[in-house]
């Protein structure tokens, strides 16, 4: 499966992730960082102290003031981009599937990051694919699982534009299943990161336990967080009416509902309330929040919405 069209890739090459905060990675990269080091970007002066490198002394200034000042330059470092990809059972719904859409978004963001020499980590959650836990008996299944585990491992850290193809292949190898714990996954992701950076969370956020603690942990760790909520068209506007017994795909919980066209408005109001609460939560913490139907054209989200929100430019 081609995740992204060549036309889209060509247009994405022009973008670079915009990080409001300075990169904190220890590895050298192309991002400005707070660290001072060797580059061509002048940053500041400071008084010479014993032992400083004479090569950075500003001799012109010494000529005028007869004092020794040292020129400081910004060190350019890489920007770690962590993409949290919801691979739970609920993401397999929708037409097109929410998970497919999420992988496409992940691929686009990853591509932009890789193009800018940034390190990309894709963290699918739940950690293990569902079928790996349930049945490992059959060879085909287990082979697929092995391949997926390998892909998951490879996706932990990808760097350099030359890794793009491999990155895409590994993304394609991912499958969705099982029940996700969004909060736990985000919190652990925040703790695991050695440096903060950009965190992109791709999920439907339909987790009974909520999303608040996970996102708070990410923000607290210093990440710049972007959320893309992906909902299926069926979730935005249900098409099944009558007396229903709904079964939750992840928890297996049942809910009896009598639903008709006359209650459509009320349902959509509920949905808007849900989204609005989330938007307000995000605004309060400086998180970029996007919501999209899995039916939305990818270009519309990537080239217009993310660009307008200055996720990249």
């Amino acid at each position, binding site marked *: 499966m081609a995740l992204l069209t060549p036309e889209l890739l060509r247009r994405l090459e022009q973008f670079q992730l915009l990080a409001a905060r300075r990169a904190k990675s220890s590895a050298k990269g192309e991002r400005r960082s707070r660290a001072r080091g060797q580059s061509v970007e002048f940053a500041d002066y400071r008084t010479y102290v014993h032992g400083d490198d004479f090569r950075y002394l500003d001799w012109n200034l010494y000529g005028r003031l007869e004092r020794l000042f040292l020129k400081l330059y910004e060190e350019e470092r890489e920007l770690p981009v962590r993409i949290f990809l919801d691979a739970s059972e609920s993401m397999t719904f929708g037409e097109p599937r929410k998970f497919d859409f999420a992988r496409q978004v992940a691929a686009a963001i990853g591509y932009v990051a890789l193009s800018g020499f940034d390190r990309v980590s894709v963290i699918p959650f739940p950690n293990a694919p569902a079928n790996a836990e349930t049945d490992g008996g059959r060879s085909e299944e287990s082979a697929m699982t092995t391949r997926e585990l390998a892909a998951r491992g490879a996706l932990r850290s990808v760097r350099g534009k030359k890794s793009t193809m491999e990155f895409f292949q590994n993304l394609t190898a991912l499958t969705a299943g099982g029940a996700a714990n969004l909060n736990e996954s985000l919190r652990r992701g925040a703790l695991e990161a050695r440096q903060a950076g950009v965190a992109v969370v791709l999920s*439907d956020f*339909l987790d009974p336990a909520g999303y608040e603690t996970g996102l708070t942990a990410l923000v607290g760790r210093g990440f710049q967080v972007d959320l893309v909520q992906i909902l299926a068209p069926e979730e935005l506007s249900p098409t*099944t009416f009558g*007396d229903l*017994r709904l079964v939750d795909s992840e928890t297996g919980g049942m809910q009896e*509902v009598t639903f008709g066209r006359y209650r459509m408005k009320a349902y959509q109001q*509920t949905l808007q*309330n849900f989204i609005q609460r989330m938007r307000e939560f995000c605004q309060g913490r400086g998180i970029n929040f996007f919501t999209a139907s899995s039916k939305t054209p990818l270009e519309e989200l990537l080239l217009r919405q993310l660009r307008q929100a200055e996720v990249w430019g």
Partner: protein
Amino acid sequence: MNFLAPAGFAFAASIPVVILFYLLKRKRVVKLVSSTLLWQQFLAETQASAPFQKLKKNWLLILQIILLIFVVLALARPFFASKSKPAELRVVILDASGSMQATDETPTRFEKARAEALKWVDGLKDNDQMVILQAGANTEVRQSATSEKAALRRALQACTCSDSPTRLVPALRMAESLVRDRRNAEIHLFSDGAVPELKEFENRALPLVYHRVGKDSNNLGITALDARANPENARQRAIYASVANFSTNSKSTELELLLDDHLLETRSLTVGPGETSPQVFLAAQARDGVFTVRSTAKDDLAADNQASIVSLLPKPVKVLLVSRGNRLLEKALRSAADVELTTATDMADAGTAFDFIVLDDVAPAIWPKGNVLAIHVVNTNWLESVSHVDAPPIVDWKSAHPLLRYASFDNVQVMQSLTAKTPTWAVSLVDAPQAPLILAGELGRQRIIWIGFDTLESNWPLRVSFPIFIANAVEWLNPANAKSSQLLVKAGDAFRLALARPETGAQVTLPSGVTKNVVVDPAANEFVFGDTYNQGVYRLKLGTNDTVFCVDLLDAAESNIKPRDELSLGQYTKVSATTMQRSNMELWRTIASLGLVVLLIEWWYYHRRTV
């Protein structure tokens, strides 16, 4: 506790329907969804977010409001005020005569009239009163004045139709007395108008409202029936029947003659519209029996399609002639048919062995108890102030009386005569200017003919009228004839039978097969049975005697079932059939029914839109 409209409990039948609706289990479709989180929130928000919400356009709400409006309207019991003026008292006369059984209205005229009357009961206002009279052969007060609708409905339901002719006069008389001095009172007559003259009510300003029932006059009926000895052959009986066609087209029928339920003869017959066809059947009869004439034509009135008559075999008449010798009289008596004449010069007993006794100028020691032809005798028990007249001229005689049939008193001269004032029990047959010369009548159960003059002192025995009169007298005085006429009564009339000895009880088997026990007063000398409302053959068991008698309609006025558009009260006053609607027609039942319909629509809509 009483209910004004107990029929309303019929609506309780809707309760199980509602319960049934709730018993229906809603079948839920199981569906796998990504997450039920949104649905839980949706339910939480839509269920109890706030005590009030903005009013939305909701068809369920609108339907329920319409339903409530209907219910409230029904509870308010609205009604249409109609043209009829408010009446405080309505006297309802329900015609229950034979013609009301006509089936031109479904099911019958009587049921239609009853239904109409029931509607008027429904329209009765709370304070108004109603009286229900049933007018058949006699008038019955079915319900005295009341406002209680349940009682009025019960009374109307209890009314029954009989085969009897209409006797509207007593009913109207009673109704008139009820509405007299009442303002706003009305008499409502539910009838087909097949009633005799109501001349008595002319110029009485009777507040009569005539509700006509009936549409057609399709009826062929037997209006007369008689059975006699065949004059040409004494062994045979001649049965006379009149078949009248009251419809507007000629009708054909098969006329059947039955003797004790055995078919003797069938005759095809076509009667033109408005015509009457007299029919004579001749039949041999070996013993007493019941002749039935039956018409098989299909018409609207069944009661007159059959008539029965009891025919008793003629027996010789035993006559005792008490005379000092009157050859002319004796010869006249002997020439009458079937007479066994015994002559005597005086009477020693009451003469109970004889059918009747002729006293010719002899005053007996013991007056006979049976029927008597008394010539020139004085009995002060019969007559008061008997006096003599000489050569009384005969000025008038009643030729219509059966005794004077074919007997004329032209050229009859009387030399001298006894005369007396006409007593109440008798009629005068032959009159002189001063007083009657011949009287006839019934005193108690005794038939008496009194001739004031000695026939030998007149030229009457030399006239043709004399033997004819004697023959008529033999027929009239023969108790067997009287008895056979007693055995045919018109529907609704009482059947009477003289009792030879005291009885305490009797059994009557009605045409329907029901046997009724009748208690007889031991002191009574007459048995009376009044429950003769239906046409047919009745069998009476009285002591050891079995008697059969017949009840027939035999009334041309009743058989003429053409509904009359107006009733004539005498010559000048006419009452037209009303088109008046019943007053204050209540609407709440209709409205409540509409409410029920709305409820069902609401239920249907609720279930439809969830799908």
